[in-house]
């Protein structure tokens, strides 16, 4: 096992940049910690942590030198890999009425494939990317742009040392320590007082090994007990996470609870604002919008994020099929925790807790699931 100094991490970022990768990492912006372009370790959120609970997120100062001393922010890597708004095609029509037959010409858009390096991907977020891979890149008709961008994507994960009160990744088997799917995984060892942190590195791919191997000599600072210290970081994090979901039989529980009164009880609180679906790193639903220009002879199709909380989402003939808030919350939760298993062979939830934090009224899916379980028992 290798340990990087802070300078070593900086050299890794510079090396990625030098290889042509667009480097993204966590930054403080707009009052949150969120993925953004980074140029060096100076862009990382030194001196900040996040405080989260149902309907509550605040940045709080911290006095140590940690660069990854927070849980997760509202925005995830899905914004980059599965953008909120993407052009699909442009269609042009020969103007009707001049006697010649009407013709349509279709031009598919191929959004650029960009090689990106993500630094600071949390284990839960890595699991979320893997779930979106399965939906968007490994289904019967893959999204070609998504797949190409992922193939070009380098991931430097950072294990979790400071989980939030809303986290429940151990229940979902996704954290606080990464399983796989990374090129390099770091564990931040925060030193006492003004000491800069060091980063214990695990190599997850050939590409990761090459990146590490190309770093200059002085970047590596091994200490005999680093591996144990790194393990202790994620063990402490795991111990600090108390929120749980009982995963056993959860799909059947939800299917058996489709007509429970509990959905109406949630609907009394749910604003159907769709915040949970926007913040969720696995929610993938999109809408197709056709926009015509003023001549009326050109139409552009856009793919935009959609949410099962919107009425139009379930439009069927003249009316929405899921007219009630209860049916829309049920769709979201049953899909996320239940029917995702039937559709994609796994749970749709990674336990990051964003939907709890970013729900304006603090609806907590772990509480709702526990209530359904209690009702069923």
């Amino acid at each position, binding site marked *: 096992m290798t340990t990087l100094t802070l300078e070593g991490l900086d050299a890794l970022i510079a090396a990625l940049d030098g290889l042509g990768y667009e480097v993204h990492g966590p930054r403080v912006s707009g009052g949150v910690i969120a993925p953004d372009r980074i140029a060096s370790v100076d862009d990382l959120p030194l001196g900040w942590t996040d405080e989260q609970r149902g309907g509550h997120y605040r940045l709080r100062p911290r006095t140590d030198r940690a660069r990854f001393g927070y849980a997760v922010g509202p925005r995830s890597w899905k914004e980059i890999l599965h953008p909120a708004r993407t052009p*699909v*095609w442009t*269609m042009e*029509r020969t103007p009707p009425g001049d006697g010649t*037959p*009407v*013709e*349509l010409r*279709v031009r*598919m858009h*191929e959004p650029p*494939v960009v*090689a990106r390096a993500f630094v600071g991907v949390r284990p839960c977020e890595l699991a979320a990317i893997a779930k979106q891979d399965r*939906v*968007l890149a490994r*289904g*019967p*008709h*893959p*999204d*070609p*742009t998504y*797949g*190409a961008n992922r*193939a*070009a994507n380098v991931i430097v994960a950072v294990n979790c040392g400071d989980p939030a009160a809303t986290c429940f990744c151990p229940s979902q088997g996704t954290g606080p320590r990464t399983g796989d799917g990374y090129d390099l995984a770091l564990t931040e060892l925060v030193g006492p007082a003004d000491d800069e942190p060091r980063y214990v590195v695990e190599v997850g791919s050939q590409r990761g090994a090459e990146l590490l191997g190309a770093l200059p000599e002085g970047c590596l600072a091994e200490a005999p007990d680093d591996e144990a210290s790194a393990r202790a970081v994620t063990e402490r994090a795991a111990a600090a996470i108390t929120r749980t979901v009982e995963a056993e039989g959860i799909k059947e529980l939800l*299917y058996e609870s*489709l*007509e429970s009164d509990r959905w109406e009880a949630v609907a009394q609180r749910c604003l159907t604002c769709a915040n949970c679906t926007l913040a969720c790193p696995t929610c*993938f*639903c*999109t*809408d*197709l919008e*056709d926009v*015509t220009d003023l001549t*009326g002879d050109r*139409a552009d199709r856009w*793919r935009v994020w*959609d949410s*099962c909380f919107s009425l139009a*989402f*379930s*439009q*069927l*003939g*003249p009316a929405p*099929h*899921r*007219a*009630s808030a*209860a*049916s829309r919350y*049920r*769709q979201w939760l*049953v*899909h996320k925790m239940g*029917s995702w298993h*039937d*559709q994609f062979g796994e749970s749709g939830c990674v336990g990051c807790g964003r939907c709890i934090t970013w729900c304006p009224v603090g609806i907590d899916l772990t509480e709702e699931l526990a209530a359904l379980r209690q009702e069923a028992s």
Partner: protein
Amino acid sequence: MTVPPAFSPLLIPVPYRVVDKVREDGGGDDVTSLHVVPVEGDLPPFLPAQVSMLGAFGVGEAAISVSSAVDNRRFHAYTIRRAGPITGALVDTPIGGVITVRGPFGTPWPLDEVATSQLLIVGGGLGIAPLRAVIEQAIAESHRFDRIVVVYGARSPEAMVYRDDLARWAGQGVEVALTVDAASPGWDGPVGVVPALLGGPVTMGWHEDVTAFVCGPDVMMHFTAQRLRELGTGAARIWLTTERNMQCGNALCGHCQLGPFIVCRDGPVVSYEQIERFHRVKGL
């Protein structure tokens, strides 16, 4: 740099020319079949019940099943009820005009797997459209069946579609039973919902030897399936169609979920055995 793989053909809208339009109802509804052919290239093959996303330029797309016979290599027929802006723009496309098609795709009626000697085909309203191709196919393979029974219910005699086909099928050995919700002068058939005919005017050896293909509004399919179960037909031998807001047709957009099913990927045809527990749940 990595090169993006080719787009799935289902993502690309293909221009089709409207070569004919047929008004299908007798004035009780607003149902038109568009006969279409690709502007370039050949008609793709399809299986009965498969759907396509039909696009009206600048308006949007709607999922419509192919309703012509599978061996019709001259055109594909799509039978469309005017219901909103998209279906309105589609049926208003003039002969010679162009629409776009993505498809056909989806699960077909499992006619090849039917092992029973009696085939029951039940359509409600425009639900007869996704059944027309399988009826034609069953007639072509009628040596496999002792009986082919078509039960079709419409709101009124005028709302019935495919009148010529119904008469022709009856002449080709198919037992055709019709019912309407509300009669009008000249109607001498039964009045009532489709399930009421089953086990009454339409009697079959339910227990051992019927496979049923059912398509219509959800409530009609629900009560039809329940009636068939009461009569002793096994849930695994009842097949019906699913419908949700279908958009991408590629299992990517999430809109057409129905419980465990992604309709564009797992449907439209599913067995009642698979869907029974979800079918009765309102707003799922």
